[in-house]
């Protein structure tokens, strides 16, 4: 027993020592500092879990006067009217004889002065007169007036293709280089000082293996590792070169050719690919899955409205992604409760071009089949009388007003498509003071589908075939409305 315990303690200690020494050991990596007209690539060192940069190289690049007094072991940087003195092993630096405390000490190893990252923003920026911006966890720093371009990326599998969406803060140019032999695609981002939200995408599927941002030589690019199945890569710019869709396609689909005996799935893939750029005027579509969390919505022996709406919202997202080159955002992708304002807020904050809230119906009439399309009540004043000279500011619940007519047009477009696909329901357009629509600043509708008090209707709602048919018709209607001139 004692031996087992001693053994266990020994193994744990050994593992701890190994881990500690690994974190202590210097791991050489490259670090970039973007200046206004130049880029400085440095060999950084990780010492005691802090990133260190070689000071002399930075000082030389900035053209600052410095003295390395080996006798008294100090390093002095001279600014125009200021002076910065560093001593090794100490976190204190002296700026014009005023001490500044850094989080990590200054180091001097093998004749080289090493400074922690906060030295640049706390100390060097004062003598150099340049501001340094750094986001923890990244390998780059931006100095002075460098304008950065933020880059967000995400990937989604759309069945026959995997779509990588790049969203840049300002217009950039992207060049696609296919390195099929190495099973790699390189997207060269022609813009300086690109600041990616994430260094690499935690995404892997049957087509895309890895997505990594790389700029160690000052040339920002994305390296995409691909699987064997990729036959074609397509790059589609959108929104004035702010958004790029990179589609990794499993098989090359000829848009003109129609198979003689088309199967349902092949036909829908061909159509999806043909229409994929439709609705380019709308950048973002927000889908709201009604209810969630403690708010279950309507129920029928175990079938909860919140679950059905989330399922339909996810299906609609997939259906839309294969038709429209817009980003599809869900207000919730899990079982959480949100207020009506928060739901509309997701659409407003994402500057969505369309907002659609999904609900299931409940009628006291067990025979009713339900389904309605709701538009915000047009003359709703919420108790306020209209002032004579119009309003300077709209109360939050009147934010829908500028888009009231567009919301009605969208409702009509959806109604047409839904009746065509599901003729058993009439999908009447109704007007009501619907909370989730009141504060949406874009064309917005709420769709109530089925009747949870009707067992037959519940069965239909849970039928995957019906769900596919319903979401496809809805996506088609949304696509037509989006293509019909609603521009942002």
């Amino acid at each position, binding site marked *: 027993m004692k031996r087992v315990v001693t053994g266990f303690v020994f193994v744990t200690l050994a593992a701890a020592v190994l881990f500690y020494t690994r974190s202590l050991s210097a791991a050489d990596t490259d670090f970039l500092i973007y200046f206004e007209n130049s880029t400085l690539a440095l060999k950084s060192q990780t010492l005691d879990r802090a990133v260190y940069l070689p000071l002399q190289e930075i000082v030389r690049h900035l053209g600052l006067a410095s003295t390395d007094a080996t006798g008294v072991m100090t390093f002095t940087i001279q600014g125009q009217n200021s002076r910065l003195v560093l001593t090794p092993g100490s976190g204190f630096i002296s700026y014009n004889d005023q001490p500044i405390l850094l989080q990590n000490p200054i180091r001097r190893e093998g004749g080289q002065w090493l400074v922690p990252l906060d030295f640049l923003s706390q100390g060097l920026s004062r003598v150099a007169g340049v501001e340094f911006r750094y986001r923890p966890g990244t390998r780059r720093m931006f100095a002075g007036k460098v304008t950065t371009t933020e880059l967000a990326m995400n990937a989604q599998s759309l069945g026959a293709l995997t779509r990588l969406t790049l969203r840049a803060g300002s217009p950039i140019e992207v060049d696609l280089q296919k390195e099929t032999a190495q099973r790699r695609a390189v997207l060269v981002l022609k813009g300086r000082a690109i600041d990616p939200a994430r260094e690499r995408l935690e995404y892997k599927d049957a087509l895309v293996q890895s997505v990594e941002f790389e700029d160690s030589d000052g040339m920002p690019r994305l390296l995409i590792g691909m699987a064997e199945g990729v036959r074609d890569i397509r790059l589609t710019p959108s929104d004035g070169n702010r958004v790029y869709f990179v589609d990794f396609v499993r098989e090359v689909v000829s848009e003109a050719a129609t198979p003689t005996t088309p199967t349902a799935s092949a036909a829908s893939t061909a159509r999806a690919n043909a229409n994929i750029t439709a609705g380019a005027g709308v950048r973002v579509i927000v889908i709201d899955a009604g209810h969630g969390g403690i708010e279950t919505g309507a129920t029928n022996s175990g079938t909860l*409205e919140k679950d059905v709406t989330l399922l339909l919202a996810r299906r609609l997202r997939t259906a839309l992604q294969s038709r429209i080159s817009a980003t599809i955002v869900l207000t919730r992708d899990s079982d959480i409760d949100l207020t*009506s304002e928060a739901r509309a807020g997701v659409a407003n904050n994402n500057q969505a071009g369309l907002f659609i809230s999904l609900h299931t*119906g409940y009628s*006291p009439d067990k025979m009713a089949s339900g389904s309605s399309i*709701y538009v915000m009540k047009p003359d709703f004043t919420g108790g306020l009388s209209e002032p004579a000279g119009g309003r300077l500011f709209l109360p939050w*619940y009147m934010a829908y007003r500028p888009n009231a007519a567009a919301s009605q047009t969208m409702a009509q477009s959806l109604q047409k498509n839904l009746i065509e696909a599901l003729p058993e329901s009439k999908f009447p357009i109704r007007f*009501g*003071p*619907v909370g989730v629509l009141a504060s949406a600043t874009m064309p917005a509708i709420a769709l*109530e589908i089925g009747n949870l008090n009707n067992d037959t209707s519940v069965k239909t709602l849970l039928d995957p075939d019906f769900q596919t048919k319903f979401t496809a018709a809805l996506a088609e209607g949304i696509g037509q409305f989006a293509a019909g001139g609603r521009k942002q």
Partner: protein
Amino acid sequence: MSSRMSRHLKIGLIVLAVGFAITLGLFVDVIGRIQSMVQEKEPIGNPFTPAPAPLYEQTDPPMTVKVFFPGMKDDIILSAEDQTIRRSGELANRARQILQKVLEGPKSLSLYPSIPKDTKLQEVFIDDMGMAYVDFSNTISANHPGGIVNEQATVYSIVNSLTYNLPEIRQVKILVGGAEKETLAGHCLLLPLGMDLSITDITPSKEQVNHAD
């Protein structure tokens, strides 16, 4: 050796027991809180409070009113049903009588009740601007079965029944459990609402068209 072991065992068991007791206590407390949140108990009536004043005098003349209940057919969400109340002197008492009829539900079998069972009318207050504040117990919201059409039917059965029959009331603000609520059950805004006959089987008169918001 064995006595030390048993002492260690005892200490271990005591620590475990104390830990278990604390966890159990916390668990019971949390469950209690959740239960009290879910089913807020109606306050127990004070036996010493005087009996409520009658809503009308026996001498008050009868008055036919249209009370709106869900009866769905295409665009129509609400159907009107004729009922009789007494024309009491105080406006708020007439409003209370009408709301009592709404709470009781329809006589016709083709129509449905609009308000969940066990809901109580707690207070009615009408201000000088013609705004009626009607306060219902929490059950109107907590026990509402849901659905946008159904929720709109509940809200407008109250709003229309009051504004159609009592022209002095221009708008209705529904309160739940004495407080303001964003929506009744996740769909319909509970801001002050005016009459909406477009969802009913009643055609509004000219006067009522001007009257609606």
